[in-house]
């Protein structure tokens, strides 16, 4: 194995640069080094002006997502040796405005997320359950939504989604997967409220089931399945609305 590998990094400062450009850095190629380790080496030893987000280094915080060799990845979970002999291209996540270098602006997602009400909605919460008492669930009830609760909001699914790239109004995979996570929770009664949001024109029917969201998810959430389930749920509700009188729905 060679002892160094070249990182080809996208640099961009919107206030001074007319457009993004490439800058190359040679970093040590070690078996246990990830792309994030390479970037931190650059930041600490070579070029302190390089900007990127990171925090936990163990795939929990979801802040170090970038496009590595064109593919949305958590850089803390992407080993340099898997991209040898290089060069390894590192770009900001696709489909988002760039704040600086590898840092993207997530305000679009932050505005969309609360629209699907990703919290437990239960009208009787404080009447049937004391606030300081645990709300018990069986293992089966936990399993029903656990997969969708693994989302770390890393935005790889948005970077991979061609529909979001073409139509930024689309509410997007992670928001819909989180809506499904609360719908499937036995403590929740908010299904109708979320459905009202997701059946809008920028909701689930924007998805054309490309499935890239599920493929790139580092936590093995299946947003594409969540979206398909929502489409069926919304379709069934619509059929009921056509067939049944108002009182029976």
């Amino acid at each position, binding site marked *: 194995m060679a002892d160094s590998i070249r990182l080809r990094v996208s640099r961009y400062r919107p206030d001074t640069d007319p457009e993004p450009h490439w800058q190359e850095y040679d970093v040590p190629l070690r078996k246990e080094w990830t792309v994030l380790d390479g970037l931190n080496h650059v930041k600490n030893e070579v070029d302190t002006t390089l900007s990127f987000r990171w925090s936990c280094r163990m795939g929990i915080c979801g802040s170090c997502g970038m496009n590595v060799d064109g593919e949305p990845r958590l850089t803390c979970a992407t080993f340099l040796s898997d991209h040898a002999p290089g060069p390894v291209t590192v770009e900001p996540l696709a489909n988002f405005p760039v704040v600086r270098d590898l840092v993207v602006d997530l305000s679009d997602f932050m505005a969309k997320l609360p629209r699907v009400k990703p919290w437990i909605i239960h009208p009787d919460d404080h009447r049937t359950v004391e606030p300081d008492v645990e709300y018990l669930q069986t293992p089966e009830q936990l399993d029903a939504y656990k997969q969708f609760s693994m989302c770390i909001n890393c935005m790889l699914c948005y970077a991979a989604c*061609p*529909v979001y790239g*073409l139509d930024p109004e689309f509410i997007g995979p992670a928001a819909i997967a989180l809506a499904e996570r609360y719908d499937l929770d036995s403590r929740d009664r908010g299904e109708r409220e979320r*459905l*009202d949001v997701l*059946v809008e*024109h920028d909701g689930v*029917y924007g998805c*054309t089931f490309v499935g890239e969201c599920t493929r790139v998810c580092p936590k093995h959430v299946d947003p594409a399945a969540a979206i398909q389930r929502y*489409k*069926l749920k*919304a*379709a069934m*509700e*619509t*059929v009921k*609305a*056509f067939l049944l009188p108002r009182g029976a729905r």
Partner: protein
Amino acid sequence: MSRRRVQPLVWLAFSAGGVAAAVLLPSLALLFGLAFPLGWLDPPDHQHLLAVVGHPVTFVVLLGTFVLLLVHSAHRFRYTLYDGLQIKKKRTVAVLCYGAAVVGSGATLAVLWAAA
């Protein structure tokens, strides 16, 4: 849902058409494209097939299946044109795609009616 919406119903028809296309077409292609011509199975004779097609239940099932298949193709082709070829005239594309499905459905009805 306060307002009645069309999009979920179109999607339901698209979805049903997709299932029909995935399940029925390969078996029909296998039977009529390979198994009968190559003599793996004895083909039904013309009179027999005509009698089957002429039955009212077959008529309804075939008509429903073909309409769903056409809606599926129209919907898929519409999004291929939008997203794949980046055609911006959305209303024209929708009218042409779903219009073709309506014309195809009419043709299906005419063919089935003639056979019945």
